[in-house]
């Protein structure tokens, strides 16, 4: 079985957006896990919540991924993009969990659960379209928009080819643009 969370798989990452990079600290050994956690946990959780369309599972996935990062911080901290690694580990954890329980696409029975809290009704067609995208397509969009990753960086984080990133992105954008145009 493929080990999807091995840090070596993301070593090829080229550059890191400034706001995703670990904070600079005045030590010779790099940032501590605690610093990394404080800087990145909320951001990773937000990205996972949008990707998974489930804030609760995203919380669980973030915690699990952060625990794995903590357990092997020596190696993870050497990566060009530890935040991207944690995002992918969290995504893999949630995907694996959903596969185990057969929960491929969560939805809210009473329209009060899922991605958005009640004050965000998800009433617009575009938001519904975002939630209707497959998880893999949402992941590409989230990497590009919320994590500010390039196509190449997205490919590394998600362990897919750049061509796959582009094709998934094109499909997702087409669906979202259609929804947005229907709204306007």
């Amino acid at each position, binding site marked *: 079985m493929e080990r999807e969370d091995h840090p070596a798989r993301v070593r090829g990452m080229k550059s890191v957006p400034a706001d995703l990079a670990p904070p600079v600290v005045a030590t010779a050994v790099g940032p501590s896990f605690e610093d990394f956690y404080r800087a990145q946990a*909320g951001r990773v*959780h937000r990205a996972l919540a949008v990707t998974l369309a489930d804030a609760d599972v995203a*919380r669980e996935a*973030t915690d699990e991924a952060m625990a794995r990062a903590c357990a092997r911080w020596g190696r993870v901290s050497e990566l060009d993009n530890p935040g991207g690694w944690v995002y992918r580990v969290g995504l893999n954890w949630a995907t694996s969990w959903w596969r185990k329980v057969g929960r491929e696409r969560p939805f809210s029975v009473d329209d009060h659960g899922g991605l958005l809290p009640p004050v965000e*009704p998800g009433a617009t067609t575009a938001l519904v379209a975002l939630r209707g995208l497959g998880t893999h397509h949402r992941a590409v969009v989230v990497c590009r928009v919320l994590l500010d990753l390039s196509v190449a960086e997205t490919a590394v984080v998600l362990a897919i080819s750049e061509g796959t990133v582009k094709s998934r992105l094109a499909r997702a*954008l087409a669906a979202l643009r259609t929804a947005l145009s229907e709204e306007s």
Partner: protein
Amino acid sequence: MSSSIPDDVATLVRSAGAAVPPYTGSLEQVHGRVTARRRRHVLVGSLASLLAVALAVGVPYALARPDGPAVLTPMPAASSPEVVPAPAQRLFLQVGGFVATPGSYPSDDAPPATLDPSKPNYGFPPGSTGLVSVGGLKELLPDGSVVTHPAGGDLVRPDGQFVTVYPRDLAPGVSRTDGPCVSDLAMMLEVRAADGSVSVSRDVRVMCQYVTLVGATDEEAYLVRVPSDAQRLPLPGAKLVAHRFADGVERDVVGVDVLSGTVHDLNLSAGLAASLADCRLVVLSTSTGATEHSISVSSDGFCDRVRLSPDGRLAAVVETKFSDEGREGWIHVIDLARVSKVLSQLVYSSTQTEERQRIAPKAFAGLAWVDDSHIRVAYIEPPASSEDRIVTVDESARAVTLHVS
């Protein structure tokens, strides 16, 4: 093939990100997971042996028996009626649904927007499997049967009327930036009779605030209001308010900035508000706002429901533990005055193999005190024949009643 992101799509995605509830995890929780993982790797062999022995002698619950004097009285809900006293608290089933449609993961087929009980598979494609709740608010009665309240709602007033808060789009089809500060959105507070007739309907939204209904008397609804810019604990400006049904006048009850953005249980007679962040239970006095208790219930699970006993002496918390081996549902009962766990009980468990075979996983569905020493826990366990069809909450609800002396 363009790979640039149009501004309107980027705005949409960022809005969805901004609408995500604040992350409530903690470094302490992460370290707890690390410790638990290491411990689990060491102990998994011996634990498996111990479990096998326990199963062989027919005392599976003995593994979970606490040091305290709790006594377990398991009671299957739907299959054989329970006989319990008239409960102090009603047990409503609050559980999400999920459906897997045919096809390999992932699929881009969007699920139906609404469930249609008149159609086969509730409107899903043939071969779909999963769990759905249809028809209204579900309640597990003392005799073990499930009743549906078509009026729906989030909770019930003492007089039996249903109360709910839900969003209403006042400008459907109009494109605008979503988020807590979005325009043309109402948060409607409604009171409904059992027949669905509405006696109160009022917009309780305050721009750029989250609002959550957490309790009600016959006269007032209790709402938690959290400013949208409060992102990390403590949440500045978060407060519990009492909203008078008759005229909409609100009074501040207490600040709840140390709670995790909501009140998970409100016990008005005991003057306590309880909330969970990770598995830390925080209990506030609704009269003084002082933190009465801050108790770490567990270090390695996911806790999302708490119920205070009618006298306010005990707090029941359910915890779901996920591991590589499967999942377990536990209930813990805390004696608040003594700050001690008087009950820690395994309610359900499932292995990875079971979860692969059973499309709908076991999960907690509700929690209510029968009296000051009996807690009743509802959970979902779909029938064995659920592998190839959509099952309902009604046929999947189970319950156990636990005695804490």
